């Protein structure tokens, strides 16, 4: 492995990487616009100019011209300076060039606060304008380039990240640069619209405010938003995401890089999943059926009522959708065990009319099938014949097939429904437990490739709903099971059950997760396990 020295910091780096990455490994930032690790090198923004003081151990001579870090591959003994006066002057010059024809309309720009022009200007520019305002070149500002994307040609710095993404990743080629010199503008290829399943990634790729999301436009100033690392629940792929929110409102979902799962991207469908978290369809309180009436009850009463109903049955089936988290799935399994019923059932069909696209989109529209199967769930489309009670978790079986499910549920001695949203199945319920959505409580999921990943809690549960693990833990306790005080206790027990070690926590799993195999092989959290054994002692 070659050793490279960046600004006096030597670091051993993998073969074949470029100097921008090597500098990053040395803790040195090389600012850049057009370079993106998942796209081909364009080398056009010229922001990553660096001074190569020694090309390699074999060629220890400095290069006469500044080079671009993105297109310079490391060599052993390479010495690079990124902050000397020569580089600083060139970089300041590039920034000034980028800004002369830029509208500098930050006050009305959605990118403000997460704009690389703003950031690098503050870090590396801070020059006074020498370009007269009336000389700025004007271009179109509100160009609808797709159903979800708006283009402002004036703000565009022509880095071509979007063009390359649409050429190299989606292969759809909707955007191009036309005209020449400072007339150049980002433009739709004739007859096209940026309308593909991954289109909004170009909004994330855009380092400035040229491409904005029509959904997010003018909705919030980004500096008012908080974010939490999480996982997309739109399908079985489990793309890593950051969920952006303010107080109790979600605003957007952006992909978070994870080479083992989604690279740098996510699909637009997944981005829209947050919308379902708001609205009248959410279940905000628990209910108990009194005759024909549903009566709102508090969570504790709903749990004890549910326990009593289920215990009164001869044989109970536990059915769940593959949206149920690993913790919830584990607790449901314990509940089934305590009730003496057979293995739990996953009802969700493993395929849908959306096909696997060979990229990120999975035909399995549920995020935790692999987790539930690991816990011993069976896949089936129907209830066992001999049951007289049913516990339904995050699953609207009736909506899927009312003629099959309606009469069966009608005939049950008890139907208990646990969900975060109002469902048709609830019409047949004797008790309903309101729980958090996957944006509201921490949990883990296992994606289609067997990767265990953590869902982050962004916003509070609405109304009287409580976390799914909590609701089910209380139900388990009411049925004579052990008591769980935290989600990590449930997770730890679940890990032990799955042979993944004991005393493990979400924090230990980290934001990029691990495959079940890796996780089983990794050392467990020593501090916590010793604390746990101390408690036992």
């Amino acid at each position, binding site marked *: 492995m070659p050793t490279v020295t960046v600004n006096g910091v030597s670091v051993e780096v993998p073969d074949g990487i470029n100097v921008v990455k090597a500098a990053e490994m040395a803790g040195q930032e090389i600012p850049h616009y057009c370079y993106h690790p998942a796209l081909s*090198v*364009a*080398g*056009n*923004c*010229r*922001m990553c*100019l660096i001074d190569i003081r020694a090309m390699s151990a074999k060629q220890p001579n400095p290069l006469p*011209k*500044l080079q*671009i870090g993105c*297109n310079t591959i490391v060599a052993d003994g390479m010495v690079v300076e990124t902050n000397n006066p020569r580089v600083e*002057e*060139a970089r300041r*010059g*590039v920034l*000034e*060039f*980028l800004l*002369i*024809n830029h509208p500098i309309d930050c006050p009305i720009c959605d990118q403000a606060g997460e704009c690389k022009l703003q950031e690098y200007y503050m870090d590396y520019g801070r020059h006074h304008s*020498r*370009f007269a305002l009336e*000389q700025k*070149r004007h271009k179109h500002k509100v160009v609808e380039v797709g159903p979800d994307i708006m283009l402002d040609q004036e703000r565009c*710095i*022509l880095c071509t990240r979007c063009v390359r993404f649409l050429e190299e990743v989606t292969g759809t080629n909707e955007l191009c*640069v036309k*005209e*020449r*010199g*400072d*007339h*150049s503008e980002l433009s739709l290829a004739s007859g096209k619209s940026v309308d593909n399943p991954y289109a909004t990634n170009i909004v994330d790729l855009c380092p400035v405010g040229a491409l904005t999301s029509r959904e997010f436009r003018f909705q919030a100033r980004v500096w008012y938003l908080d974010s939490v690392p999480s996982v997309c629940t739109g399908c079985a792929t489990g793309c890593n995401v950051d969920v952006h929110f303010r107080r109790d409102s979600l605003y957007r979902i952006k992909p978070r890089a994870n080479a083992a799962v989604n690279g740098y991207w996510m699909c637009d469908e997944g981005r829209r999943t947050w919308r379902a978290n708001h609205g009248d369809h959410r279940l905000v309180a628990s209910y108990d059926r009194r005759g024909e009436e549903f009566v709102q009850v508090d969570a504790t009463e709903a749990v004890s009522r549910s326990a009593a109903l289920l215990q009164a049955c001869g044989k109970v089936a536990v059915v769940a959708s593959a949206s149920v988290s690993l913790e919830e799935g584990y607790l449901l399994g314990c509940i089934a065990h305590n009730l003496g019923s057979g293995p739990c059932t996953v009802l969700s069909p493993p395929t849908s009319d959306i096909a696997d696209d060979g990229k990120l989109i999975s035909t399995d529209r549920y995020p935790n099938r692999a987790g539930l199967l690991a816990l011993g769930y069976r896949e089936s489309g129907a209830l066992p014949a001999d049951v007289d009670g049913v516990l339904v978790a995050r699953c609207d079986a009736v909506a899927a097939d009312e003629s099959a499910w309606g009469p069966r549920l009608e005939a049950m001695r008890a139907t208990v429904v646990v969900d975060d949203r109002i469902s048709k199945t609830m019409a047949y319920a004797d008790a309903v437990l309101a729980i958090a959505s996957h944006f509201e409580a921490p949990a883990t999921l296992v994606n289609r490739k067997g990767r265990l990943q953590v869902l982050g809690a962004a916003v509070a549960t609405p109304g009287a709903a409580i976390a799914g693990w909590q609701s089910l833990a209380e139900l388990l306790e009411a049925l004579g099971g052990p008591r769980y005080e935290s989600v990590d206790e449930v997770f730890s027990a679940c890990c032990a059950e799955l042979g993944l070690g004991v005393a493990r926590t979400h924090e230990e799993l980290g934001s990029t997760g691990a495959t079940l195999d890796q996780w089983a092989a990794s050392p467990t959290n020593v501090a916590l396990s010793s604390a746990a054994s101390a408690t036992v002692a």
Partner: protein
Amino acid sequence: MQEKVLLRYRDLTADLEAIDNYIADGGYRTARRAFTELAPEKIVEMVKESNLRGRGGAGFPTGLKWTFLAKNTGKPIYLLCNADESEPGTFKDREIIENDPHQLLEGMMIAARAIGCVNAYIYIRGEFVYGAEVLKHAIAEAYEKGFLGKDVFGSGRELHFHVHRGAGAYVCGEETGLIESIEGKRAHPRIKPPFPAVYGVFGCPTIVNNVETLACVRHIVERGPAWFKAIGPASSPGPKLYGVSGHVRNPGVFELPMGTSLREIIEVHAGGMRAGRTLKAVIPGGSSVPVLRADEIDIAMDFDSVAKAGSMLGSAGIIVMDDSTDMVAALRRVAHFYHHESCGQCTPCREGTGWLEKILIALDEGRAGEEDLQTLDNVAKGMLGTTICVLSDAAAMPVRSFLKKFSEEFRAAAARAVGAASA
């Protein structure tokens, strides 16, 4: 030089455009030898030995360039003849193409044999409609004679020439822009490395040589490197075409030994200044190179000597300006050209070329002051060496040199604005 080599057509009455006349004058003997007698390595060796330096402008040693070709890649090797001749003030290659096309074809055949090329392209600028027709006709004649095709000179070797017309962009003359253009794309110069010799047209090892360079190859192989090296300075030798335009009595293309003095070229060959006029400035190598003042023309016109004098031999397109020239207006025109021709890929060039022109328009129209002169120089400085290709440098170098060499004229223009503002 007594004997004309590259412009031999001028000494003959027979029309060299016709292949039989060219053959009768000794043409294609050397190409035949190259295909039937000489080993390719021998040809490369001769060209290296001759110290031939690229006539397109950069002056890179041609033989050395050939040795950079990636070996044993399993891919075809391409030879591209750069006949884009787009540098303002340059019209020498046109002279060869239109009057002695077979000389170019023969040089290309020899070069193609040397580097192992089977398909070669001549990329000719779109405006050279006549030149393209001449070349197509000449190529057809060569095919008819069996000099091109599946069995070149009966050697069993294959060689094909194709003429590709450009569409009029300056940047197509940049070798990687030219490659992109041949591939049917916008001529956005490529980032280097990889260089064309490793990854060129269609992703294959490629050599791009200028028309005059390839014409020289014929004569080097025909007469030997020693003959070539004896003409002009040994480090940058050979016969050279100088194109003189502007305020001279006898503008045109002149074949002279490399290293002929700039003064001799202007005063003797180009006929000197018009009556009653004196020399003010000379751009020695096409519009992109630094300008020289009238007192700086006692220099030898070869790559190294002109560089030592602070300019470049470039394409040897000599633009002469007499005392009637308004240097601000002249520079404004040059800046307009580069603004118009920037491909728009790299930030400094895309934004800088327009900015330079805007300041120069303001200066020319009496709206720019002393501070703007500093900005002008500083903007140009920021465009040097910061981009993928040298179009940015080509735009910046004249600006900086005009400002330096004719500072009093630019200050006077700036003062005009200050006066206007205070009035």
